[in-house]
């Protein structure tokens, strides 16, 4: 049996003010996975990550990284782990290359190897030209990439990214996705938290949703998305329309004079819809999902969990 990349058993955290951030969560992440840990603000995602990387003292439970308990096999566990936190947490006055070189040193990498890896990851992340600049002079996107380079310099087997693309423009976000897919394909297990659910849906194979310190769901992305019974599409219409056409078996709604919304049941064919629309002289020029599929499930699961907690 393969040792999980990450094992969390009954993890609990109660802060000094009595706030119970984690209520005994359990989770396994398999080696090589690209795993999404999602949840609304204050759900417990960052606390979970904080405990895994020793920035938060847990009040109960166990955490192991590739079988190494973080309490009893501290050094071996940490060697396996790389973390990209949500907030910028490097010395803003240090040079870019020093930030990465120092981190390599903290993992005991000899200087020659540290220099080689620093160049490798700064080049991969497009920061090599900026290596002699102080970190504070970098743009927000570059600072995020610097933190990724720093987290990778000791080549961890498990990489945790806490909202790595927050505040990053779409072009840069997509290039970051490609980079993360590349290192995942090379064997690095990745755990990602994000508020961009499109990002989680396109990158991650497995998912856990956490809310109010409890795991609401923990399954494969495919299985989770299969739970979606209905999907809404927006149809862009060539002609100006006055009202939504009535077509049997489909519920159409007019959004504006050039767009319609249709709700389609799971497994329902769209061919009939297009035939009927064509017969009614309504020409569809483009079609898109009204909202992200994962977003719909996320909202539904979190609100169900909130209602359950309220009762």
């Amino acid at each position: 049996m393969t040792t999980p990349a990450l094992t969390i058993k009954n993890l609990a955290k109660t802060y000094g003010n009595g706030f119970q951030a984690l209520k005994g969560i359990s989770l396994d992440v398999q080696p090589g996975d690209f795993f999404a840990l999602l949840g609304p603000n204050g759900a417990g995602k960052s606390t979970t990550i904080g405990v895994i990387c020793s920035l938060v003292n847990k009040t109960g439970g166990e955490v192991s990284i590739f079988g190494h308990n973080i309490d009893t096999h501290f050094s071996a566990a940490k060697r396996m782990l790389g973390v990209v936190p949500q907030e910028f947490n490097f010395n803003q006055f240090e040079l870019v290359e020093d930030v990465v070189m120092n981190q390599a040193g903290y993992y005991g990498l000899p200087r020659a190897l540290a220099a080689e890896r620093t160049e490798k990851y700064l080049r991969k992340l497009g920061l090599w030209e900026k290596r002699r600049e102080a970190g504070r002079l970098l743009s927000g996107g570059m600072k995020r990439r610097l933190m990724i380079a720093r987290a990778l310099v000791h080549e961890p087997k498990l990489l945790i990214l806490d909202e790595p693309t927050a505040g990053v423009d779409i072009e840069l976000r997509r290039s970051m996705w490609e980079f993360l897919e590349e290192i995942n394909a090379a064997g690095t297990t990745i755990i990602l938290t994000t508020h961009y659910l499109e990002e989680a849906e396109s990158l991650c194979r497995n998912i856990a949703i956490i809310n109010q310190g409890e795991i609401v769901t923990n399954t494969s992305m495919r299985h989770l998305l299969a739970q979606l019974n209905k999907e809404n599409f927006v149809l862009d219409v060539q002609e100006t329309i006055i009202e939504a056409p009535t077509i049997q078996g489909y519920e159409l709604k007019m959004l504006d004079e050039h767009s319609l919304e249709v709700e389609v049941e799971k497994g329902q064919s769209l061919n009939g819809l297009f035939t009927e629309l064509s017969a009614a002289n309504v020409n569809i020029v483009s079609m898109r999902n009204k909202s992200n599929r994962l977003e719909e499930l996320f909202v539904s699961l979190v609100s169900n969990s909130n209602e359950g907690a309220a009762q």
Partner: protein
Amino acid sequence: MKPVEQWISFCTIFRKEIRRFMRIWVQTLLPPAITMALYFVIFGTLIGSRIGEMGGFTYMQFVVPGLIMMSVLTNSYSNVVSSFYSAKFQHSIEELQVSPTPNYVILLGYMLGGVARGLAVGFIVTLLSLFFTSLEIHSLAITVSIVILTSVVFALAGFINAVFANSFDDISIVPTFVLTPLTYLGGVFYSINMLPEFWQGVSKLNPILYMVNVFRYGVLGVSDIDVAWAFAGVGVFVVVLFSVCLYLLNSGTRLRA
């Protein structure tokens, strides 16, 4: 972590600390040099010439070891308190917390960074003092060992201050309201034998008195207190403060939520 990896990690922290105070030498190395040069001119030359001898030496010879020691201990303290608090403030301390570096290595790195600045400033001030007086070292071993031990004590004290500090104000409170008065009353400018018996007793509660006197003994061969006891006291301080710092790091006090 293997010993060789711990050594690499220690060297990384130590190198980073030295580069930090060298990068901002205008804030770290220059001010104590200017301040001490002014002390030498005002207290040593101008006022000192009217004071006459103290402990069998000119006032300038008497005051120089105390001023060197004063600059060593304040700079050792300042370096660690500002560097470690700054790392806390910017959250860059998390770089070390997530790494496999053991806490004692982190502590040694910061502590010896502080010692390095203390000794660098001490060296600069000693060179400056040679423009005003001649220094004939009575015992090099005692001089060097007490200056290093004192530097260690104050670097560790600075570390504790940084751990508990919540703002930049908090890192200047102890130096201003505790360290400076203790230093001025620690026999830097006078021999405690000049004080009434009661105040001599009170002065002996001040740990800085012992450090300054041992250093003065190392340089001039005269001291107000027993050198062996002073060494023992400073040694106890080193062990106690190191243990407290390590406990704070291990427990994550003010460092982990």
